[in-house]
């Protein structure tokens, strides 16, 4: 039975834990370095990316997170989590972890009144379109050859991408009761995805 860590520094980590529970997966809140040992996958939740990165550095998690993911720990970032995983941002800050070959633009749709819901098709997700919730959401501006685009929206910018064992979405599957992307991530964790 795999255990998935959920970075619990700030944001909607509890909703990810609930989704994992619905799938019968053990989860663990990650706040300090020692919590990272023995997990089989990691989710970086939605939240404020500047806050999450500040606290990753303040509590000295950066190097350990980078080492774990570079040595194969499957990781999924939602919204702020996507920003944390990027190798560069269009904006000057925060300073991301440089784990995925994507350039990300924060708040790409503008302020909160432009946040929206949209049903989108996602490669590898069977069934009806996925109810995607975009909240002050980022988009992928550019990505490297190793990155597979799983979903884009009308303006052509990717909103769901995968690079091997690393998954990132601009939107928040954890705010719905639709667990298909959590299941996709568990397939990656269990080596079948």
């Amino acid at each position: 039975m795999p255990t998935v860590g959920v970075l619990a520094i700030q944001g909607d980590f509890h909703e990810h834990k609930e989704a994992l529970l619905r799938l019968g997966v053990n989860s663990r809140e990650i706040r300090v370095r020692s919590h990272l040992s023995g997990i089989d996958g990691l989710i970086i939740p939605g939240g404020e990316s500047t806050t999450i990165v500040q606290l990753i550095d303040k509590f000295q998690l950066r190097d350990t997170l980078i080492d774990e993911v570079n040595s194969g720990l499957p990781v999924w970032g939602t919204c702020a989590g996507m920003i944390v995983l990027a190798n560069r941002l269009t904006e000057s800050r925060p300073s991301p972890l440089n784990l995925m070959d994507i350039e990300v633009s924060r708040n790409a749709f503008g302020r909160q009144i432009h946040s929206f819901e949209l049903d989108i098709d996602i490669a590898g997700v069977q069934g009806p379109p996925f109810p995607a919730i975009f909240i002050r959401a980022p988009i992928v501006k550019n990505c490297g050859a190793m990155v597979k685009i799983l979903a884009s929206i009308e303006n052509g910018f990717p909103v769901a991408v995968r690079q091997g064992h690393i998954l990132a979405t601009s939107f928040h599957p954890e705010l719905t009761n639709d667990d298909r992307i959590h299941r996709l991530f568990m397939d990656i964790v269990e080596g079948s995805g």
Partner: protein
Amino acid sequence: MAIDHISQDTNNSPKTGTWRVKAGLAQMLKGGVIMDVVTADQAKIAEDAGAVSVMALERVPSDIRKAGGVARMADPSKIIEIMDAVSIPVMAKCRIGHFVEAQILESLGVDYVDESEVLTPADENNHVDKHSFKMPFVCGCRNLGEALRRIGEGASMIRTKGEAGTGNVVEAVRHARTVMGEIRRIQTMNKDELMAISRDMSAPFDLVQEVHRTGKLPVVNFAAGGIASPADAALMMQLGVDGVFVGSGIFKSENPQLMASAIVGATTHFEDADELAKLSKGLGDSMPGLDVHTISADEQFASRGW
């Protein structure tokens, strides 16, 4: 909590201003600290310290209390200056019931509006109809009935009222304990007792039923009103709130940078006493406090609104 109030529309175009989008932004703020700021420089200090959002004001509550008179929405140029200075969400306050101030704040593109008892109420009977806005609202409460009335009007985030501008956490504790206690009570009631409690609390029946079913508020619930130290923030988190607002407590302290950063750390590590001890060291003086019992009843902010 999954947000499932609004069912999917079959017409597939982007839908803005939905309940899930409004309540969803509050979910993203959880485990975070929202700080009152009165200048762009303070907003940057707050962002650098790890604030999840800032509340743009002309005066912090302790100065509003000192100044007296009628406190209104901030000058839009002040709010814009702060919105331009930071990349985190910016909140602003409108007076209770002042829906035109709310319309102006929406027009400015404010990310969340606080219909706040800290400003002088514009309507002593009615709060703003918050469902009619695309911009989300947070409202204060002293008990569960008040929280559910505000949610019924469309608030997608709740906070305790506490007693703003005092640096005294006692009222925030009272309000958080009251809300949590009433939730526990409703949760254990029999179904046939819910209408009577709905009547007694003057709370919408459907929301009382929802609390009975889920054992929690339908929206994110922060603490506010008197938080002035890392220990205060952790106390409120251990009492079960989702995050904290700090008003005067940061920029009225001796060293705002240190205090801001320590309160952010304490809100994440709220259950780790060793970490809290480290975070509480050497912060200088907290804001000057005020004994709530010395404030006359008609000068208490918390009794504004109903």
